[in-house]
């Protein structure tokens, strides 16, 4: 064996040599070689430094929300384990809990159920519109043709928490917008796009929304909504937006709740915490209080993920949670 190939053979054993995991004869052979080979001794030193570098890494603390969620696992609650058929949308990950959905939902539920938070709305001018033809599973719904509820008359306020979803067809609340979100003569297509900018150059002016609707989603129609949101928001938001708009989104909620006499600041921390932990560059684009298979739910869409030299957020996650904050469905786009 020439020296070069001997070094190659020895180098393969150096890792185990350092760990004292070689058989005695191998160990002696490697040791004898090291005594006379400067290069292999240098390799041992480099390996030892690499091992020390790895071992120097600290353990990560488990995020408190994760700890809490892990203790909430109850297999019996996974009642929606059957995934709807997939097309371009990635397979839904069905989970009893998902950090984003759970904690964001808890924060939002606490917001939405504040008894003293009145969401003002235009309850007069509404028009019936049938579900978009693109998916017959989409429930029929009523769409207000009026303006953003924040711009509407306060005298026409209704308490979002007291909204009877069974009997509130034609009433829809929007929180979080300072701009018109529906055009005159809005149709369902536009309803699905609410919360998104009108055109692709206007993303800086678009704000996420909280809706209260009378929609009753099914797995199929939720998938359709997820697809609509994903397609419609494709390329609209950048990672910079995630920072700026997220803060603005949370600020708006805090402001709205406080303006109504609620403790708005209490909603700031959990919202930020979960968005931080879930996807650092995460931007909530759509939150809706609705129904899922006849049970009250929250639908939360989050835009996140970027890469490939582009700062645009290209992934969409959609969470359907029950009002206790547990995620019933979780979709993530490809």
């Amino acid at each position, binding site marked *: 064996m020439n020296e070069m190939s001997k070094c190659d053979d020895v180098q393969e*054993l150096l890792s185990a040599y350092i760990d004292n*995991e070689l058989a005695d004869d191998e160990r002696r052979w490697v040791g004898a070689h090291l005594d006379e080979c400067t290069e292999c001794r240098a390799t041992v030193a480099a390996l030892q*430094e690499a091992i020390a570098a*790895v071992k120097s*890494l600290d353990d990560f603390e*488990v995020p408190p929300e994760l700890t809490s969620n892990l203790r909430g696992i109850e297999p019996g609650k996974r009642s929606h384990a059957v995934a709807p058929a997939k097309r371009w949308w990635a397979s839904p990950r069905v*989970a009893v809990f998902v950090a984003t959905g759970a904690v964001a939902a808890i924060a939002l539920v606490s917001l939405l159920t504040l008894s003293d938070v009145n969401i003002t709305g235009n309850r007069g001018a509404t028009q019936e519109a049938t579900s978009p033809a693109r998916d017959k599973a989409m429930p029929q719904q009523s769409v207000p043709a009026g303006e953003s509820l924040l711009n509407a008359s306060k005298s026409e306020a209704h308490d979002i928490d007291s909204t009877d979803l069974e009997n509130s067809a034609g009433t829809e609340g929007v929180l979080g917008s300072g701009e018109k979100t529906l055009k005159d003569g809005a149709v369902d297509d536009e309803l699905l796009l609410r919360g998104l900018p009108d055109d692709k150059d206007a993303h800086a002016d678009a704000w996420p929304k909280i809706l209260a609707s009378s929609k009753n989603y099914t797995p199929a129609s939720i998938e359709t909504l997820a697809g609509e949101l994903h397609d419609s928001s494709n390329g609209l938001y950048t990672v910079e937006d995630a920072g700026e708009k997220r803060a603005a989104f949370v600020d708006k909620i805090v402001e709205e709740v406080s303006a109504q006499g609620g403790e708005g600041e209490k909603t700031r921390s959990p919202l930020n915490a979960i968005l931080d932990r879930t996807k650092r560059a995460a931007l909530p684009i759509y939150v809706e209080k609705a129904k899922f298979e006849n049970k009250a739910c929250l639908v939360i869409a989050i835009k996140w993920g970027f*890469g490939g030299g582009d700062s645009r957020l290209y992934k969409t996650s959609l969470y359907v949670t029950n009002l206790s904050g547990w995620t019933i469905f979780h979709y993530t786009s490809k």
Partner: protein
Amino acid sequence: MPQDKADLDTVLIKSYLAGDTDAFNELVGKYERPAYNLAYRMVGNAADAADLTQEIFVRLHRNVKTFRGDSAFSTWFYRLATNCCKDWLRKESRRPPTQEIQDTLVADGGAGPSRLYEQSETKALVQKAISALPEEQRMAIVLHDLQGYSYEEIASIAEVPVGTVKSRLSRARLKLAGSLAAIKEQNGRLSV
């Protein structure tokens, strides 16, 4: 894994299967930290690590009744957890490869107390070098050098011969040594 701890795991599983849901939470308490850290080191960021950890425990919930005690529970659990990591990485491989690195860089650039990754630049670079390793080698490094499992235990977890573990560790460390040498060359002495 000390014998008394292994025995306690078995007791907890039996209690849970007998209807004691608190027993499962005790298991969670024992394994959430290593599972989260395994997940974090495998996927390279806190957000995905949290999601992945939850998937690990959902899968544990679904499969715990199939644990027969043929091996230590910790070995069985790590096999489940590492398979979960592999599935996750396979699924996530469809996204642009630069994402995690960019996420890390953006996150590193951010100020404030909510940062969830290493404060030290050097440690972040070490993690980046680990993230660049092939999946099986990364797993071997994490299990051995960070979580303290022996070659034999890793072989049992990964269901491969001990020689394969040796080989994976050796290649992983040689690559890491090369990466760290390159970093040192660029940035001066590596402080670990």
